[in-house]
């Protein structure tokens, strides 16, 4: 054993070890193993796409409808999965705090990274299938797409950490997040776009960074779909702002938390 390992190296190792453990625990027990990580969410998204397409949902210029909807559902799922799982991350891993290198926040980060990898995989499998069946798939702006999803991950983790700490103080807080999540599905543009919303109602929706993320990701995956009203700067400010607040809160609470 070597001593004098730097703080950053300890954190990197802890997160990597937790990440691998989480994958193993969640998918290792099945015959099809890691395939389930993708099969489940992919089939969910496919069902939603089929239903909406059958209902004759309106098309948008510059982007095909399955891509439009796929991006919406995957992004919304990424947000809810990360924030919901973050709340439970510490509690579920509390026995691991006996191992010195692991700090509570590491368990949250490891889970968030796993969700990001899974959902990126889901998105590309869906795009891949659609392309195989002759669909029109373009990756117009890969750097922006990556950046948007990183920011969305930061935002969701920040929200999750915040509610995790709140739950530690008031246990009812964990019931509040799902209450917020459900309406978000309908007001975050999962299945519609700013384009179709009358301008008068924009202020009611524009505050929502998730809406911005979804529209920006669509723009990056289209020929010439325009993310009207959405702003990468606003998404970045929101994500980093929420994360900073969560981290300050965490620093204040870390020593007071009930680890066991």
């Amino acid at each position, binding site marked *: 054993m070597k001593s004098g390992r730097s703080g950053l190296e300890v954190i990197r*190792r802890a997160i990597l*070890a937790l990440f691998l453990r989480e994958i193993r625990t969640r998918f290792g027990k099945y015959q099809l193993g890691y395939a389930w990580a993708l099969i489940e969410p992919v089939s969910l998204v496919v069902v939603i796409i089929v239903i909406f397409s059958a209902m004759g949902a309106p098309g948008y210029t510059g982007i095909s409808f399955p891509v439009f909807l796929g991006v919406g559902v995957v992004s919304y799922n990424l947000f809810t999965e990360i924030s919901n799982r973050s709340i439970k991350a510490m509690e579920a891993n509390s026995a691991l705090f006996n191992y*010195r290198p*692991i700090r509570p926040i590491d368990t949250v980060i490891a889970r968030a990274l796993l969700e990001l990898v899974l959902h990126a995989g889901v998105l590309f499998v869906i795009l891949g299938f659609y392309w195989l069946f002759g669909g029109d798939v373009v990756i117009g702006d890969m750097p922006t797409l990556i950046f948007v999803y990183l920011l969305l991950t930061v935002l969701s983790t920040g929200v999750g950490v915040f509610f995790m700490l709140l739950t530690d103080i008031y246990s009812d807080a964990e019931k509040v997040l799902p209450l917020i999540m459900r309406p978000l599905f309908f007001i975050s543009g999962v299945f519609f776009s700013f384009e179709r919303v009358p301008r008068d109602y924009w202020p009611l929706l524009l505050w929502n960074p998730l809406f911005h993320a979804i529209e920006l990701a669509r723009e990056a995956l289209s020929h010439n779909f325009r993310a009207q009203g959405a702003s990468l700067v606003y998404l970045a400010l929101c994500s980093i702002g929420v994360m900073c607040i969560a981290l300050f809160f965490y620093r204040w609470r870390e020593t007071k938390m009930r680890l066991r």
Partner: protein
Amino acid sequence: MIRLEGVSKTYRTQAGLHTVLRNLNLEIPAGAGLGVLGRNGAGKTTLINIIGGAETVDQGRLVTDAHISWPVGLAGGFQPSLTARENVKFVARLYAEKEEIPMILNRVRDFADIGEYFDMPTRTYSSGMNSRVSFGLSMAFDFDYYLIDEVTAVGDPQFRNKCDIALMEKKAKGAGFIVVSHDMDIVRRFCTQVVVLSSQGLRHFDDIEEAIKVYQNNG
């Protein structure tokens, strides 16, 4: 070296605040064996958890640059759906360099000596098998200090003997020990000094027999 400076720890309970440790000062030199005696609820496990980093202090601080083990034989960190190999790998990733991981896996497998169970989910293990793996895991690393919190000796006499030898080897290599036990033989063998925890605070003894006497008289 491990030093506790003015450490206090209070728990919130439904009956109000409960102070377990109050303004505690303690220094444990490298290679020392410290026995911690006290009645149930005196704060022995809290003290071990603070030294091990599993609990934080309310006041004061813990000063150390030593490698300190998790409580020896701790199996609570095992994920039941994973095999012993996977669980061991997880801990090895935290504490060892990448190229040392195969060696650690071998050490634990040899020590545990549970055959093909090593590659089966730990939820299928008997408590004896569980402690074989978890004890082997603690012994696979060279820590500066080992935390021992009531190793309730499970397993057959042969295995207990094996554990004993492994701990003595660590001691011979110069490792320190912090031992919580109601078994005075273990305290006598591993400790060079003893603290007795009680509601009056902490009393430090260099004479182990004297400490045992005080502890047993106060029951």
